[in-house]
C-alpha cells in the first residue's frame, strides 16, 4: 500500500461510512413497518449469533448454551418487571448481571473441556435452563410462558415505538459488534486463537488457558444477554420454545451459514435465515425444506460459509488478474483475516 492511494482511500471509507450510517439511521422513516420489525429481529438475533460465532470461530468453543443465556436474560427481565413489578432500569440491570453470573458458573463448569465434550456439556447446560423454564411453573408459568413485558417510556419518549426501539438497538448492536471486533484484534484475541489451535502449546508457553477461555466466554455472554433483553421487550413474550433445542440449532446453522468466526458474515446469515421465513413463506409452507437444501448446498460447495465463499472467489479473481498482467505479487497471498 503506497502513500499515494491512502488519502482517497480514507475519503472513500469516510464517505461509505457516512452513506451506510444515514441509510441505517433512516430505516424507520421509509421502511414499511413490518420490514422495520424484521430489521429489529435481525439485529437482536445477530447479537445472539455473534456471541456464538465469536466463541466458535475465535476460541473453538461451539457453545450451545448461548440461547439459554439469551432466554435466561429474557425470563429474568420479564419476571422482575411483571411479577415483582420493579421499575426500570432495575429489571434490566439485574437481568444482565444475573445472566453474567450464570455465564460465569457455566463457564467454570465447561471451559476445561474441548471440542465435542465442550459442545455436549454446553448443550446440557442450555437444556437445563430450558427444562427449568418449562417445568418451574410457579415462577416461569411453564409451557405458556410470560406475556406482557414492554419497553420502558422514559422522559416522555416511548421505546415501545418501533423507531425509537430500533435506534437504541442499533447503537447497542454496533457497540457489541465493535467490542467483539476489538477483542478479536487484541492480544486477548490472539491468545484465544492460540488456545483454539493448540491449548497444550499455549499452556506450555505459560498462558493460563482456562482464564483466557473463561474471559472469552464471559465476553460472549454480554451480547447474548443484551439480545435477550431486547427480544423480550420487543416481542412482549418469553416462552420455553425460545430456549429449546430447535432454536439453539437454528442459531448454530446461521453461524455456519455466515461463516464461523466472521462477525459480519453472521449478520448476513441471520438476514438470510429470517428472509427465508419472511419471503419463502409467501410461496410455500416448505420453507424449512428450502432452508435445509440451501444449507446442504452451502456445506457442500462453500464449507466456510457465505463470507468464506466470497473471499474464495475474490482470491481466485485476484490470482487470475495477477496471472494476466504477469506482475509478480508484491505481498504474500491474502491470509484469512480474523474478521
Amino acid at each position, binding site marked *: 500500500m503506497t502513500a499515494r492511494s491512502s488519502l482517497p*482511500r480514507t475519503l*472513500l*471509507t469516510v464517505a*461509505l*461510512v457516512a*452513506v*451506510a450510517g444515514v*441509510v*441505517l439511521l433512516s*430505516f424507520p422513516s*421509509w*421502511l*414499511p*413497518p*413490518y*420490514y422495520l*420489525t*424484521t*430489521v429489529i*429481529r435481525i439485529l437482536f438475533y445477530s447479537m445472539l449469533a455473534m456471541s456464538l460465532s465469536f466463541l466458535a470461530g475465535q476460541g473453538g468453543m461451539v457453545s450451545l448454551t448461548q440461547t439459554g443465556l439469551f432466554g435466561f436474560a429474557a425470563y429474568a427481565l420479564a419476571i422482575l418487571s411483571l411479577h415483582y413489578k420493579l421499575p426500570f432500569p432495575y429489571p434490566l440491570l439485574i437481568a444482565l448481571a444475573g445472566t453474567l453470573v450464570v455465564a460465569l458458573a457455566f463457564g467454570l463448569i465447561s471451559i476445561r473441556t474441548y471440542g465435542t465434550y465442550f459442545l455436549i456439556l454446553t448443550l446440557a447446560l442450555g437444556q437445563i435452563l430450558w427444562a427449568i423454564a418449562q*417445568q418451574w*411453573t*410457579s415462577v416461569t*408459568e*411453564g*409451557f*405458556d*410462558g410470560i*406475556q*406482557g413485558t414492554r419497553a420502558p417510556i422514559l422522559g416522555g419518549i416511548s421505546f*415501545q415505538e418501533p423507531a425509537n426501539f430500533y435506534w437504541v438497538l442499533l447503537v447497542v448492536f454496533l457497540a457489541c459488534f465493535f467490542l467483539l*471486533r476489538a477483542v478479536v484484534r487484541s492480544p486477548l484475541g490472539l491468545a484465544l486463537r492460540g488456545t483454539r489451535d493448540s491449548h497444550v502449546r499455549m499452556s506450555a508457553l505459560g498462558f493460563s488457558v482456562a482464564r483466557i477461555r473463561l474471559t472469552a466466554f464471559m465476553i460472549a455472554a454480554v451480547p447474548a444477554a443484551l439480545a435477550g433483553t431486547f*427480544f423480550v421487550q420487543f*416481542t*412482549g*413474550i418469553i*416462552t420455553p*420454545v*425460545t430456549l429449546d433445542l430447535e432454536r439453539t440449532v437454528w442459531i448454530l446453522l446461521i453461524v455456519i451459514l455466515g461463516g464461523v468466526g466472521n462477525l*459480519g458474515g453472521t*449478520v*448476513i446469515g441471520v*438476514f438470510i435465515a429470517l*428472509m427465508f*421465513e*419472511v*419471503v419463502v*413463506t*409467501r410461496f410455500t*409452507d416448505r420453507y*424449512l425444506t428450502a432452508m435445509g437444501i440451501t444449507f446442504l448446498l452451502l456445506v457442500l460447495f462453500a464449507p466456510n460459509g457465505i463470507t468464506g465463499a466470497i473471499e474464495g472467489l475474490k482470491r481466485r479473481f485476484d490470482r487470475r488478474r495477477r496471472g494476466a498482467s504477469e506482475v509478480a505479487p508484491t505481498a504474500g497471498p491474502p491470509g484469512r*483475516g480474523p474478521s
Partner: protein
Amino acid sequence: MRRSIALRFLALALAGLVLGGLPALAQSSESETFRIGLIAPTTGPFAAFGQMQTEGSVLALEQFEYTVKGHRVVFFIEDTRLNGEIAVDKSRKLDEEDRVHVIVGPTSGGVGLSVLDWARDSGVPVVMSYSAPEDITMRLAVENVVRNSWTGAQPMDPFGYWVASELGYKRIYMIGEDYSYPYNQAGGFKRGFCRAGGEVVTTIWHPVPTEDYSSFLARIPRTGYDAVLYNGAGSDAVAFVNQYIEFGMLDVYPLLGQSNTFEQGDLPAMLHEAAGGISAMQYVETLQTPEFVAFRDAYVERWGRTPAAAAEHTYTAIVMILRAVETLEDFNDRDALIAALRATDYPDAPRGGFYLDEYANPVHNIYIREVREVDGKLMNFGIVRVPEVSQFGPYDPALYMAQPVDARNYPPDACADFPPEMLDVEEVYEFIPMADGR
C-alpha cells in the same frame, strides 16, 4: 480492512433497501378487499390442527364464494410453528403488511396468550378459534379479542357435576399432563364434581410428553377410588389409554377422559377396549342435527375426511366474521366490526347454536360423549347434552374471577378444602339424554 467493514455495512443497508421494495411486489393492489389472516401451526407436531383450521376456513370462504357485500375476500395463512414469538411476528406481518381486518386462529394456550398480548396494543380484531386459556376472555380480556371456541374448564364443570350426580362417583384418581390447559380442565372438573357431592379428586401430573406410564399405573391404589380420569391428549393420551388397557386396569376402574383424550384423530391408534371411555366437549363428530350433517357432508366432499373440532371452530369463526361484516356499513370501521363480532349469535352453528357472553366467550352445548365401536371403528357418540353452558358454569363472573387461576395445586384435591362460596351456588345445568345422535 477498514474499507471492507464499511462496505459490509453498506451492503447491509442496501439489503434493507431491496427488502423495502419487496412488499410493493407482494401487496394486493385492491384497497376495497376484506382481508382475513389465519395463524395456525401448519408445520411441526401440531400440523394436523393447522391443516384442519385451514380446511375449515377455506370451506367457509368457498361457501361465501370469497365475497362479502360485493367485495372480494382475501385470505392469508401464516405458520406459527406453535411458537408464541413467531405467532406474534406473523400477526404483525398480517397487520402491518397485509393490512388484514381480522385475525383468526391460534391453537395452543401459550400462543393464544402471546397473540392476546400483541392484540392488546395493536387493537386488531382477533377471533380465537382454538386457544383455550380462560383468562383470554376473563381476567385479561380485551375489547378486540373474541373467542368462538372454549375455555379449558367450560366442558369439564358440567362433566364433573354429571360424574358425581349421575354416575354417583365420589373419588376420582386423575393423571394429567403438566401444563396450564390440563390444570384448567382439572379445575373445571373439580368445581362441578365437588358441588355435586364428590369427595376427592387426587391429581398427579406427568411431564409432556411421556411414553411409558407403567410407573404411574403401578402407583394407582387398587381400592378406594371410583374411576380414573386421564387429563391429557394427543400421543400421550394414545399411550396412556393403551397401557391402561394392557395393564388390565379397566377391570379395576372405568376410564374417563378430558375433552381431548378421545379425539377422533387419535381413536384409530387406540385399542378397541377404549370403547366405553367417557369425556365431555362442545363437539361430537357423530351429531345428527341437520346443521351438523350439512357441514360434515360438505367437509367430507371437499376434503375427503370427517371434520374434528378444530375444523368446525375455524369454519364457524370465518362464518361469524363474514356475517358480522354483512351487518356493517363499512368494514374498515374497526370499532363497528369488533362490536358486531361481540354481538355474535349463531343459532345454526354445526356444533349447535352459540352466542357470546359479555366477555366474548361462547355459551353453547356441552356433549357428554362415550366412545363406541361401530364397524370396527372407534367413534364418540353423544349421550347427554347440556345446553347453554357458559365459561363461568353456574357462577357469578365476579365470584369466579376473584378465585386464583387454576394451577397445579389449585383448586384443592379434597372437596372439603374448597372455599364454601364455590360450593354453594344455584345450579343451572340441564342434562338432556341424547338419542340417535341428537
